[in-house]
């Protein structure tokens, strides 16, 4: 009967039971203080680790003495390297106010909040800073080096014991005025017992973006479609016709999407290929699809483009568009573009 109930719910919802939400800030329209994305450099690093007992290659183990597990004989390329985590913070309505950033980490988040709290195991403050978000937003960053004690603790609390890597959580709390956002990012440290460890993951890179099928360079100022183009209907039935939309399309380099392998639960190796996903954010209007790219069960060949449409007459001036690309396994980057709204006079009502 559960499926039946779900169908009934769907019918009811489709019949108009849900209400509208006229908020200025939506998933893809940025108005308030927001963290839009994170990038870790490097997003992944591979460490050679011992495995005990010697029953085959499944999950690398770190013994309690931490550093002894790391095979320094493999050379400096596989030593622990510092990680820089950069956030993309936007605050369009903040009018250039100070944004306080506090970076923290922990081995295990609080069971209730899912956050690193002061009492969390291995809690540490990685850094604090004040930034100001401009038109492109702000990019606060912190650099830290995971120590072996933290890696050992991460493996101890991980039910998978490090299968698919240790996920070192970095938490950013941004505060401006009475707004507060807590965001988290996982930096991956992969433990490998292979003689030839797999290459670490790299952040995806998106260089090319198109606006109405034309290259949209960082310094190009394009003009997007006006929110109000015409008035339709007569008398009380009159209204504004939706503005035409602009096509925004990321053009990835297929060669940059990586092949990689994962270890299955029964110890086998499975080969996969990265499926990049794109998220679109803007300070004006909205997108027909706020996320494109990655295949899904519903669409195995999804389009990458989206339609950007300004919704409100008050939209105007300079608009910022952020496009975030993710490789699905921790790699992430973004680019920023701008567009200018045309000067358009509103038609007189009723005409």
């Amino acid at each position, binding site marked *: *009967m559960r499926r*039946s109930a779900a169908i009934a719910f769907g*019918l009811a919802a*489709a019949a108009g039971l849900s209400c509208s939400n006229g908020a200025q800030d939506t998933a893809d329209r940025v108005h308030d203080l927001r963290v839009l994305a*994170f990038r870790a450099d490097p997003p992944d690093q591979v460490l050679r680790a011992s495995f005990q007992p010697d029953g085959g290659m499944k999950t690398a183990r770190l013994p309690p003495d931490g550093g002894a597990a790391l095979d320094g004989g493999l050379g400096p390329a596989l030593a622990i390297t510092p990680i820089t985590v950069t956030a993309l913070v936007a605050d369009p309505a903040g009018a250039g106010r100070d944004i306080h950033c506090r970076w923290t980490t922990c081995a295990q988040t609080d069971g*209730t909040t899912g956050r690193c709290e002061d009492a969390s195991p291995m809690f540490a403050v990685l850094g604090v800073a004040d930034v100001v978000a401009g038109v492109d937003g702000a990019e606060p960053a912190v650099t830290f080096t995971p120590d072996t004690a933290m890696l050992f603790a991460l493996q101890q609390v991980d039910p998978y014991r490090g299968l698919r890597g240790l996920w070192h959580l970095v938490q950013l709390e941004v505060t401006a005025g009475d707004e507060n956002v807590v965001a988290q990012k996982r930096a991956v440290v992969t433990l490998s017992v292979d003689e030839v460890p797999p290459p670490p993951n790299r952040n995806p890179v998106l260089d090319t973006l198109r606006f109405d099928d034309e290259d949209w360079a960082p310094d190009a100022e394009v003009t997007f479609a006006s929110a109000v183009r015409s008035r339709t209907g007569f008398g009380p039935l009159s209204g504004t016709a939706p503005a035409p939309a602009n096509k925004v399309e990321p053009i990835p380099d297929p060669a940059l999407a990586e092949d990689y392998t994962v270890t299955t639960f*029964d110890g086998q190796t*499975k080969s996969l290929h990265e499926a990049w996903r794109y998220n679109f954010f803007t300070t004006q209007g909205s997108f027909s699809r706020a996320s494109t790219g990655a295949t899904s069960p519903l669409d195995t060949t999804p389009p990458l483009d989206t339609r950007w449409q300004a919704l409100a007459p008050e939209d105007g001036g300079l608009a910022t568009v952020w496009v975030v690309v993710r490789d699905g396994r921790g790699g992430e980057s973004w680019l920023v573009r701008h567009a200018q709204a045309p000067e358009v006079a509103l038609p007189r009502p009723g005409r």
Partner: protein
Amino acid sequence: MLLRLRSLIGPLALAAGLLAAARGVAQEAYEGAVRHAEVPDASVPVMTRGPELLQPVEPAFPDGARALALSADVTLRLLVGTDGRVEKVDLVKPAGHGFDEAATAAARGFVFRPAEIDGKPGPVQVEFTQHFTWTAPPPTLAPAAPPIATLVGTVLEKGNRHPVPGATVLVDGGTPAETDAAGVFTVVTPPGKVAVSVRDSSHQPFEATETLAAGERLEVRYYLTPKAVGLYETTVHGERERKEVSRRTLQREELEKVPGAFGDPLRVLQSLPGVARPSFGSGVLLVRGSSPNDTGVYFDGIQIPLLYHFGGGPSVVNPELVDRIDFYPGGFGAEYGRAIGGVVDVGPRTAAADGLVHATAKADFIDAAAYASAQPLPGLSMSVSGRRSYVDALLPLVLRGTTVISPEYTDYQAKVDYRPPGTRHSVGLFAFGSEDTLHAVIGRGSSTNIDINTAQGFFRVEGAWGYAGDRFTHKAQVYAGLNTQSFGVGELRADQLDRVGGFREKAQVVLNEHLTVRGGADVQLTQARLTSFSPAPPDYRGFPGEQADPTLVSQASQHDLFPYAEWAELRLTAGPLKVMPGLRAEQYREVGRWRTDFDPRLIARLERGPEGHRSELKGSVGLYHENPPLGLLDAERGNPDLRLQAALQTSLGFEHDFTDVLSLDVTGFYNRRFDLAQRVNVVTVADDGTVSRKLADNVGLGRAYGLEVFIRRRITEHFFGWLAYTLSWSEERRQGDATYHWASFDQRHILSAVAQYKLGNGWEFGGRFQLTTGDPTTPIVGSTFDGDTLGYRPISGAAGSTRLPTFHQLDLRVDHTWLFNRWMLGVYLDVQNVYNQPNQEAVLNDYRFRTQTVVTGLPLIPVLGLKGSY
């Protein structure tokens, strides 16, 4: 002057007038005054012979009434003892003028051949109408005129063509004639124009003028209008024996006319005590704090997978084919199993044994339904019914934009019963089924539209053989059928096809007046075939937000489910005390595992007082098991090692009958549920490094306790209604959790008031008011942005620590019926949520869980319908 005495005591009238026996053995022995010639229920004692009036006594016509030339009918209720003597006479419909005393005095002298119940003499109550008809004394000197014309007629009730027996027919003030059981009368009269009048106490007077030629034999048919159109048929149903602590039985008239139910019998269940209100009118049965899957649904004793079309729509059974609904909110006997909540058993209706063809058609803006029945041969009755929705054709008129929804539902039933005249055997064949389909397109015209196709349905065909002996009764059923379920979104598909077969045997032996033994077997074989075209379950640890392996793969699996049960029950009677111990032993062979349970159950009742003023103390305790949902037993997505889910149910209650029709039932209950199967994600890494995951486990615990109050005014000619109030707590937790929290369906106060009144002249009016505590909700106190998925994770407050606002709603219904000689036409207006209360049903969160949007329930909805009956 002529005094005529006539008795209504015939087989049909007796059955119609029979009420539950007043005391002793008969109280236990009689269950259901009319069995409708259906396959007998082995658990039901049977009246094997009705009482027969051997020595009537003619009453004296009161002198005062004679002087005033008065006629009258006096209705009495007689308690006929086991020796055939009249032990008690109650005046049901007095007439005054000395008629009452004369009728009572005469009735005390009646001698009956006593009734037999299960082959033994037993006391019964019968209703008896004494007719006093004044006529002028015949002329003493004039010679009798020779008969020269004959008027032969049949008197039928208008609208339904039922014969009217016992009506008085007067032709030109001559000798009155009386209609027989078939409504037929014969009058010999002088030729010419004659005035005909027909009188009957339950119908309006009828007058006609006929012209007869000398020697002519004129055949006529008269239709009498009942004094109240469609009176509630109180006399065709007897009081079923009270066995279980909380069995609530609803009759046809109660089921059809409850406002807000849109004429759907099974939706009335949601107005009974112990049943929580489902949100969105979804229709799921939330019984005493249990989840919807914990309540078993049976149709004619055979389990069916769903009760309502689309979960919350009309029921899957045509209302015309529903005779009664037995609802057990808990504490049911060993006969039922595989459920740890409640049980709903819908009794099908057997075609009327009146030799006529009957048909009904109904239509409103949602669907249309039809029903027809006939009795082509003595003992053979047949009925067929069906229903089809057309809301799919109407929705496009109101749904604009890019969303298209096309729901369709169909149900159908065909039933044949045969009881050879003069035998105690009966056989039956019953086929029924239901089919729902839903096609929806969201984002029509877009290249990224979502196409949804779902379907669910079932079909059963059942053969039954029954025997009703003096001491031994049984019913055997063998059935087969299909359950289908499919769900598709785009290319994704998941289908399930169940081939179902089974056998049920139920037998009863009355050893003596103190001991009855019942028992049976319940065997079911289900072959479930699941096919899907969907992403394979990940066999590796996925990174948050990773979607690198969306390849759709075809998968097929087959599961043979084989639960079988044996059960036995004793009914011990010692004076006012009845004790019913029972044991149900069941084995489940499912997904390659054996699971066994033994469920002991005990039910006891202590009765005091005469019929109409009876008081009862009642209690029950029992163990109940059910198998986990199939989806949780799957090896890849669940855990095939799950144990059976279990519940310990207890109840203690009190019943009191203030009158024959007004009763109070107060029942307290405490149910503890344990070993509930729930999804978990427990990862275990073996020494060799391999990883195993447990995705489901018996870690759920629940408890529900409370009090149910049921004040009920049973059906009489003009009125019925009830007030149901439930005070309940339903809590749950997982093993290892320190404290319980409110269960998802916990509603502290549940109040339902139902009333229906027949105003006369075909008008009928009813209302239902519901008031319930809002469902528990878990507040969201914040959220965290996940930089790897670019989504927000909510931070929940204490589970179930807040509630939606109190729900309240009023539904009204008006019916009007027009009578024609051979058929009747009814129109009804059922208005749901009359004062358009915006009841809050859910809260939707924005993308970052900061802003909540309220979702309200259904607004005021008027439904206009038509129903024609032939």
